[in-house]
């Protein structure tokens, strides 16, 4: 049962990710990426990471991809089509290079042996993650708010000033 679910979601994630990079219009790519995020959130639930799954749906599918859609609407990309793919030798070199990279990753992954803590099951629910965030990782948690503040200020300045 679990492996059936895993293969279903894995196929969903891989096919929609391929559709993201191969579809012609960016708006379709964003909509396929929403499906990828749903598949990944389901995989997180299978890995007992409930909080991360919820955040995945809210932050990625809810906020980041909507931001992409807004920008695509603003930019009004009319003449996108075949020309949005790279032409020339770099296009034909891309696939072999990626395959070499994939084989390297595969050989590295096959050498991983985690010291067995199989019986120890962690539940990534909001309570346990919140406890960890506000005790051991309090300083990074506060510093990340400054990163967000810098992003807000940077976005405002970049979009207000007319760079010439």
């Amino acid at each position, binding site marked *: 049962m679990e492996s059936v679910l895993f293969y279903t979601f894995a196929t969903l994630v891989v096919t929609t990710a391929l559709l993201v990079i191969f579809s012609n219009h960016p708006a379709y790519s964003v909509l396929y990426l929403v499906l990828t995020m749903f598949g990944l959130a389901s995989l997180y639930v299978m890995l007992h990471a409930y909080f991360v799954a919820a955040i995945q749906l809210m932050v990625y599918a809810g906020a980041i991809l909507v931001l992409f859609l807004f920008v695509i609407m603003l930019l009004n990309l009319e003449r996108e089509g075949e020309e949005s793919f*790279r032409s020339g030798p770099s296009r034909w070199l891309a696939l072999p290079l990626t395959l070499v990279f994939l084989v390297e990753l595969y050989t590295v992954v096959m050498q991983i042996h985690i010291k067995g803590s199989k019986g120890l099951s962690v539940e990534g629910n909001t309570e346990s993650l919140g406890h960890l965030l506000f005790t051991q990782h309090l300083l990074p948690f506060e510093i990340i708010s400054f990163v967000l503040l810098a992003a807000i200020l940077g976005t405002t300045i970049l979009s207000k000033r007319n760079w010439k």
Partner: protein
Amino acid sequence: MIPLSYYLILSGILFSIGVLGILIRRNAIMILLSLEIMLNAVNLSFVSFSRFSGNLEGQIFVFFIMTIAAAEVAVGLAILISIFRNKKSVDTDYMKSLRW
């Protein structure tokens, strides 16, 4: 139970798809989307390591990565809009004023 290596291979495939997307597309929006795919692949491997080593730290990392990804997308799209204002295009082949 699904072994750890299956999740890691899935994460590797997803990361490679992101790399392929960055290599073959010219549209800057598509490059940012491929970057998101790669970040999510890394998140998947973090969560699976966290599950299989019985340690929640990996999920804390995923939390921070998502925050950084949100900030990165916001600033990246703002830069993209200001490039579009100047060049009337988001094609990366036209962004060559910094190229040697």
